[in-house]
């Protein structure tokens, strides 16, 4: 008898718990209805982990600055892509399907960016990225993917060409390339430039991402009597490569160029002794005479002491672009927001910026900088001088983008 009573009590309890669970599940999505999710996709582990951390900082700055958007609170949805396209794509899909997130920005690795662009197009979610591979706004362009950063074509044009003009006697160029989409993209663009200006490409070394030994490349570069050594890597790879280049006294025999750097992040980590005399290309520089940049730098420094770097700035502006587009469209509906984005103009971080409608590429400047040595540094952010800046984009007639 007692056992029967116990059984029935347990049965009753089970039913109540299940019912509660069901109610909560129904209510949960509704509870989130007064927030809008804006996602930042970033690698939070591996070679680009430090960059990922900066991405999150930049996103937070933009969200905190805005507060409420069309009456809803903005929720940052951080997605760790671990630098793997499959992982990133899967997590984005999950975010769209189970959390109803429709606005994404970020990714550091080009292969991840390409994968997420596909998901965005398929699921009709907005995606703004800062990855480098030309294909994002080239043959892989789509209605829902946009890019803020200058693609590898422009990065190479705005760094190599001014240096070629500045040092006409430099005829022998050596390149070091990370063996994946981004690296190949930079390399191929550079090869075109070498051919155009009749320069000798005396050697290239491919290395796996996350490599720690670059010593053999330098012995080869020195043996080839290169005038310039160009580093197509990024993040930790660049840091390691430059440190070891310094070990091997490479700077005494050749000039060094990093066409796509993370700006202050790289310079602060390697320190002025190693950085001195190295040329850096950057999408962004905290010290330019642009009101938004000055304000952003102040806000970042108030929180994090150091001047703001490229990854944080990129995620800041991309998040802001999403916010601006939603405000202008007066709706959270992705197709409408996409339409606004593709003809949008705004006060950006490099001056007035605007979106090219035919390929969803932002028209903006790219900077070439020369890092300063210890004796020339006058303050915490004074790490480099801007040698030149400009805009280089393939004309519409040469674009491989077929926007449907």
């Amino acid at each position, binding site marked *: 008898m007692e056992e029967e009573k116990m059984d029935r009590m347990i049965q009753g309890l089970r039913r109540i718990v299940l019912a509660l669970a069901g109610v909560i599940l129904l209510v949960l999505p509704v509870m989130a209805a007064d927030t809008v999710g804006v996602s930042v996709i970033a690698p939070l582990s*591996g070679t680009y*982990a*430090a960059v990922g*951390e900066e991405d999150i900082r930049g996103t937070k700055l933009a969200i905190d600055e805005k507060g409420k958007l069309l009456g809803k609170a903005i929720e940052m949805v951080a997605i760790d892509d671990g630098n793997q396209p499959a992982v990133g794509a899967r997590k984005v899909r999950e975010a769209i399907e189970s959390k109803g997130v429709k606005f994404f920005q970020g990714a550091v690795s080009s292969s991840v960016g390409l994968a997420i662009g596909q998901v965005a197009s398929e699921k009709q979610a907005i995606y703004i990225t800062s990855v480098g591979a030309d294909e994002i706004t080239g043959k892989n362009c789509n209605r829902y993917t946009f890019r803020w950063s200058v693609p590898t074509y422009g990065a190479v044009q705005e760094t190599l060409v001014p240096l070629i003009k500045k040092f006409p006697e430099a005829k022998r160029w050596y390149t070091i390339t990370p*063996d994946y989409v981004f690296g190949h993209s930079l390399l191929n663009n550079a090869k075109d430039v070498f051919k155009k200006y009749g320069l000798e490409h005396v050697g290239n*070394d*491919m*290395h*796996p991402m996350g490599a*720690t*030994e670059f*010593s*053999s*490349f330098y*012995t*080869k570069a*020195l*043996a080839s009597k290169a005038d310039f050594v160009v580093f197509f890597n990024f993040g*930790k790879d660049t*840091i*390691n490569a430059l*440190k*070891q280049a310094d*070990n*091997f*006294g490479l700077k005494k025999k050749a000039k060094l160029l990093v066409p796509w750097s993370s700006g202050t992040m790289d310079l602060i*980590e*390697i*320190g002025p*002794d*190693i950085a001195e005399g190295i040329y850096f290309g950057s999408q962004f520089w905290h010290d330019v005479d642009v009101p938004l940049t000055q304000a952003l730098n102040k806000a970042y420094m108030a929180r994090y002491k150091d001047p703001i770097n490229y990854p944080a700035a990129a995620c800041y502006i991309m998040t802001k672009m999403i916010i601006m587009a939603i405000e202008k469209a007066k709706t959270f509906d992705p197709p409408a927001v996409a339409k606004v984005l593709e003809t949008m103009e705004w006060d950006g971080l490099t001056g007035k910026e605007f979106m090219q409608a035919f390929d969803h590429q932002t028209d903006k400047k790219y900077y070439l900088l020369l890092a300063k040595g210890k004796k020339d540094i006058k303050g915490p952010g004074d790490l480099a001088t801007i040698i030149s800046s400009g805009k280089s984009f393939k004309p519409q007639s040469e674009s491989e983008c077929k926007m449907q």
Partner: protein
Amino acid sequence: MALLLVQLLNGISLGMIYVLMAIGLTIVFGMLNIINFAHGAVYAVGGYLAFSFSVMLGQWMGSFWMSIILAPIFTAFLGALIEVALLRRMQNAEHEYQILLTFGVALILQELIIMIWGAIGKSLSIPKELAGVTDFGLFTFPDYRIFLIVFIALICLIIWVLIEKTSYGSIIRAGTENRNMVNCLGIDIYKVFTGVFALGVGLAGLAGALSVPMRGAQPLMGDTILTLCFVVVVIGGMGSFTGAILGGLLVGVVESMMALVWPPGTMVSIFAAMALVILVRPKGLLGFK
């Protein structure tokens, strides 16, 4: 020709770091029968401690020497702590549990590093006196890597003398062969265990400290080196001192030469070499366990 020479020299300098790590790993295995999966993590701890000491003492030549003495000592002390507090309790447990324990310690140390020093890496400059390159006529080579070769060779000599020529060393050698007998002879084997573990871990810490000016410090720096370390010890033979030296130099030279000939194949060739050694001589080239 010059290129080959440079790569050989480079390989030896890389190999020396592996040698230091492998000796630490191998004497711990030989004596305590423990495969220390935390070896990479203590290498990282040594590196970060060296960075911190260097910064605290200001970056001049003296502070570099201080940091490469202090960092291994502190790391060794950490090792002794780990051995007394954790490993000793597991000494009668099966191998698998000890491995799991050291693996857990590795994860804890890694996360502690991130908590204390942050997830972004740290840099250390090579002291000015060692920062130049020497011109060997045919080629130039960084002074710091020459220093590594010479310094680590010296350390190996000291360790060899310790193991072969001192009474403490004879206890270690005897304990490696038969620890129960040593215990029966009235020697407190447990204190010896702690000492040997601390020594092994201290060597890893030294390797970490020496490698930071060359490669910088990252939280996950222990992972890659651990894998290579195991490869070295497998090739050289678990428990063999000279095997560790041979294996370390071999791996270093192969890595360097491959970077010249076929860079993507660097890791593959090292593992292929290991597989070959296991097939031909399962105990390693000079191993006996």
